[in-house]
């Protein structure tokens, strides 16, 4: 497998016709935490849900050495690496760091396509005369991020998005890898099929059954064989990728399609009052995020996962687009009680519920949206009240204004959602504060 040390694909390989950069921050959340608390440097740090059902969001390379991976249950991470420092995520910090990093990208080229808080594609073809060749730009970006943000990242440089992304993953951590345009197949073909974009565990298994274990095998296989196993569309897609062809452009207009939030309870919940509070809290979060992004959406959807992991989604398209938490909540709750009639009766009970989520889809800019007014609704309604709460929150923090029913505890996952000031992060996190 080609690694960063391979001279064919090193930092100094030929970058002609390689205008695409994929920049991926190294252990982003964990690195931001370490930057904030230098005393953690060199120690295994795990960021994620610290409750009994929490999941790892990010692990420092020291923690990864113990086998800790993101998306792993925190319980398991604790068993693997009992000496690690476990921290609840602080998204405000990560968002701020992400914005700063994205700004560095945009200084290089307007063609920046963020994939998440910690990774983005850049098309630097147009920056060549001003800033130099792609590999040189990649070095400059890595240097600026390190100097200005004291964070490290890995960059893949290649002729297409797919190849650039594979490049960055092979360069990790803190590395740079160039896949020359005329060596793409040499780079791709030894990789396992799972490296192909769109191939998950299931598809990989199907391909293995056909005797195809590397990308080269897929490229050499007749397309009819792939079609039989994976279907028309997936077969054509993989065949193209395996030959190094990926026509996707870097699209800076990656508008968000939906905004949502969900919560996994520490213990399964059957109490309608607690569930109502949890959904109200989620609706508040979603509403605030919609308003911060200047979006409103027409479709409200909920997700309910029962104790036995059966998961149900329900959605309703409302009359006018909304960014109002109260309206999001009312629609969500109506959907929820239709699904769990036990929640309607006072003193009733639902089936044991493990997770609930609230999401708003069909987003459009809120400012220009026509709003159907309702009869008898006060002129200054929930929308204005929540805008006022946003303003207060911007000055004093989110916790100063919230619905009365949410006072005294955000939800049933207290330990994860509220990093409490004054708690020493070095104290044993297994004892809940």
């Amino acid at each position, binding site marked *: 497998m080609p690694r960063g040390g391979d001279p064919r694909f090193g930092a100094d390989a030929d970058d002609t016709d390689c205008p695409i950069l994929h920049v991926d921050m190294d252990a982003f959340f964990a690195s931001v935490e370490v930057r904030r608390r230098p005393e953690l440097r060199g120690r295994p740090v795990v960021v994620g849900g610290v409750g009994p059902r929490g999941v790892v969001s990010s692990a420092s390379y020291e923690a990864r050495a113990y086998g800790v991976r993101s998306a792993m249950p925190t319980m398991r991470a604790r068993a693997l690496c009992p000496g690690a420092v476990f921290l609840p995520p602080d998204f405000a910090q990560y968002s701020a760091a992400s914005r700063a990093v994205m700004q560095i990208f945009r200084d290089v080229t307007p063609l920046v396509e963020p994939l998440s808080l910690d990774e983005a594609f850049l098309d630097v073809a147009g920056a060549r005369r001003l800033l130099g060749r792609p590999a040189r730009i990649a070095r400059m970006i890595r240097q600026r991020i390190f100097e200005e943000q004291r964070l490290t990242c890995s960059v893949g440089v290649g002729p297409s998005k797919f190849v650039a992304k594979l490049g960055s993953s092979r360069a990790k951590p803190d590395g740079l890898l160039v896949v020359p345009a005329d060596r793409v197949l040499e780079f791709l073909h030894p990789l396992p099929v799972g490296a192909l974009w769109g191939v998950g565990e299931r598809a990989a298994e199907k391909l293995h059954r056909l005797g195809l274990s590397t990308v080269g095998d897929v490229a050499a296989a007749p397309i009819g064989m792939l079609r039989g196993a994976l279907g028309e569309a997936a077969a054509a897609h993989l065949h193209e990728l395996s030959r190094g062809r990926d026509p996707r452009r870097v699209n800076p207009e990656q508008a968000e399609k939906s905004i949502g939030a969900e919560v996994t309870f520490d213990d399964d919940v059957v109490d309608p009052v607690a569930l109502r509070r949890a959904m109200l809290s989620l609706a508040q979060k979603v509403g605030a995020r919609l308003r911060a992004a200047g979006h409103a959406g027409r479709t409200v959807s909920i997700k309910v996962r029962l104790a036995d992991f059966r998961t149900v989604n329900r959605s309703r398209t409302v009359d006018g687009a909304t960014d109002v938490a109260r309206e999001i909540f009312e629609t969500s709750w*109506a959907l929820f009680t239709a699904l769990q009639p036990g929640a309607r009766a006072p003193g009733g009970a639902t089936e044991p519920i493990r997770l609930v989520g609230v999401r708003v889809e069909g987003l459009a800019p809120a400012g*220009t949206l*026509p*709003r*159907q*007014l*309702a*009869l*008898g*609704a006060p002129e200054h309604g929930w929308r204005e009240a929540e805008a006022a709460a946003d303003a207060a929150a911007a000055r004093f923090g989110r916790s100063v204004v919230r619905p009365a029913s949410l006072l005294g505890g955000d939800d049933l996952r207290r330990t994860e959602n509220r990093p409490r000031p004054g708690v020493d992060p070095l104290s044993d996190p297994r004892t809940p504060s």
Partner: protein
Amino acid sequence: MKFRVERDALADAVAWTAKSLPSRPSVPVLAGVMLRVADGSLHVSGFDYEVSSQVTVEVQGDADGAALVSGRLLAEITKALPAKPVDIAAVGAHLELVCGSARFTLPTMPVEDYPSLPEMPASAGRIDAAAFATAVQQVAIAAGRDETLPMMTGVRIELNGSTLAMLATDRYRLAMREMEWHPDNPDVSLNALVPARTLADTAKTMGPLGGVVTMALAQGGTGEGMIGFAGGTRRTTSRLLDGANYPPVRSLFPATHNSQAQVSVSALVEVVRRVALVAERTTPVLLSFSADGLVVEAGGTEEARASEAMEATFTGEPLTVGFNPQYLIDGLQNLNAPHAVLSFVDAFKPAVITPADADGEIIPGYRYLIMPIRVTR
């Protein structure tokens, strides 16, 4: 049970009763229509625990008795029969139906498992069937369809002496009709919230029969929570919705207005329909009124756009107001008048649409309130 009946009378009776049957009944017998013959009359009835309906048809009865058969199947068969007398007889566990040379054998369900139909509540008064049908249609259009807001899916009926008022709203528009009727007790004062769909279906079927409709509404005692309508040979009962907390919607009508427009109903409906072709589901049509008349527009700067000018008489400061085109058309089409008078407070307050005669005089009795769409330009 054995009888002979006219094809059309039978087909009509079965079609009407079968229409209100549940498509997925909680118990199988509820998918059936009951045929019961006694003293030369056939009673065809259906029931789904919410709504019951019954039609009486004159028949030539040879043997009294009852049979319960699938309503949907019987409705389809009777609709397709030739125009000849129909002979029906219960034979063992089957129903034999013969019409001309066509012969059908249908399975029956046990009559004794069928729930007894609710008693008709005591009569509250009478009203002309055709006028009632028109009035219900005018109001039911504004009722909500969202089952999560059950109160909004009903038409509120208010009986006060010789005045019958009906109101419905889905929170975005409100329709109200007031009319004279003939109460059994001149001091009557009763309220009821009737499911709008049931009321509309009932009125629509009783209107063309002509004559009068008897409205039956109990105040406590037997039939509490029920409403009944009887017209011609048909009667229906429906469970009421809980309207105890129905909001005082009459107060939503603005007491005064700052401007008023008078337009031809058919012209405005036509223009709005045309212009709204470019409006997306949630975007409004914009009505700009001035002394010069009315301009109707729709569409955004990026999308398709349309505009059309038309004649209108307008008094007041020029005004631009946005409406959901369908809500506007719904109101205009139910005015049943050549002209409409639109009264405004401002672009963000409810507008009132009232019918007017050819001279522009407001015809009292019906008002349609419509809430604007706020547009940022």
